[in-house]
């Protein structure tokens, strides 16, 4: 595989995911932020989206981390959290994960993409994992957008080429 091209594509697609998630978080009305309706609260879904990107960009499941500003189980969308992070905390976390993504993609060596995947359920190679991660994140951006379409009347616009 021509690694530089594959990684360029990943940079573009992760960048689009971050831009759409960033915009969705901005668009969420204050009253919707912690509202538990027929869905987990908006903040928890945004957090889950970012945490999963963070998780799958880690070296291994064991070396992944959970953010300190939320309850550890908040990554699980079935968990009912007693505390609510602020919008700013989630936005800061987004920028942190975005930077991590840049760093991970930036340091990948040519031989690693075809190498063994330490998250085997996402596919046999690291390249599979990088794509799985984008799929998962985009799925959740769609969920966030659906909630915004219904509750706020405006959703994050689809991004082709991130700024």
């Amino acid at each position: 595989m021509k690694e530089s091209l594959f990684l360029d594509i990943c940079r573009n697609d992760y960048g689009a995911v971050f831009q759409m998630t960033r915009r969705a978080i901005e668009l969420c009305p204050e009253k919707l932020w912690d509202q538990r309706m027929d869905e987990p609260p908006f903040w928890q879904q945004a957090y889950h989206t970012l945490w999963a990107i963070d998780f799958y960009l880690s070296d291994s499941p064991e070396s992944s981390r959970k953010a300190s500003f939320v309850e550890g189980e908040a990554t699980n969308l079935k968990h009912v959290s007693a505390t609510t992070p602020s919008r700013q905390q989630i936005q800061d976390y987004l920028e942190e994960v975005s930077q991590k993504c840049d760093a991970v993609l930036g340091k990948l060596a040519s031989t690693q993409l075809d190498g063994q995947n330490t998250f085997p359920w996402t596919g046999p190679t690291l390249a599979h994992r990088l794509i799985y991660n984008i799929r998962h994140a985009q799925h959740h951006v769609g969920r966030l957008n659906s909630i915004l379409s219904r509750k706020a009347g405006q959703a994050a616009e689809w991004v082709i080429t991130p700024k």
Partner: protein
Amino acid sequence: MTIGEAVAGAFARTWEMYRSAINDIPEEDWRTGDIDYLIPARLVYHVVEAAEFLSGATPEGFAWGHRFGADWEGATPEQLPTREQALTYLDEVQARVDTWLRGMKDSHFLSPDPEYLWKDSSFLDRALYLLQHNRQHVGELNAELRHRGLPRTKWR
């Protein structure tokens, strides 16, 4: 494993989610909804048509809305496909996408494909863009099903 096989596998899982959603949505919910954009038939129509478009040899001449005589955004509920029509369309387009993906060698995936997305994009760009688009809308659909108290399609 070739790039085509790997990407086709990711698409197959996504198509299964759509197929499952179409089968599980009751008839009375399929072409209805208080928010026009979130009508399930409309979202599915858009996704399948976009996949038909993006798996073509050229974007030139593609007639949006050709399949059901109305564009996905402007169609009235009556103009939107029935569940059976949507499944047939999905089957056809899934086969088309699969053939497209599996028919390309790795070198072809990595070659320039300037007509669809942007000037210096590749065929792999286009394939992954389409995959991302599919996932975005299945996420939207799932949230809408949840809102309606209907079973959501299982993550694959």
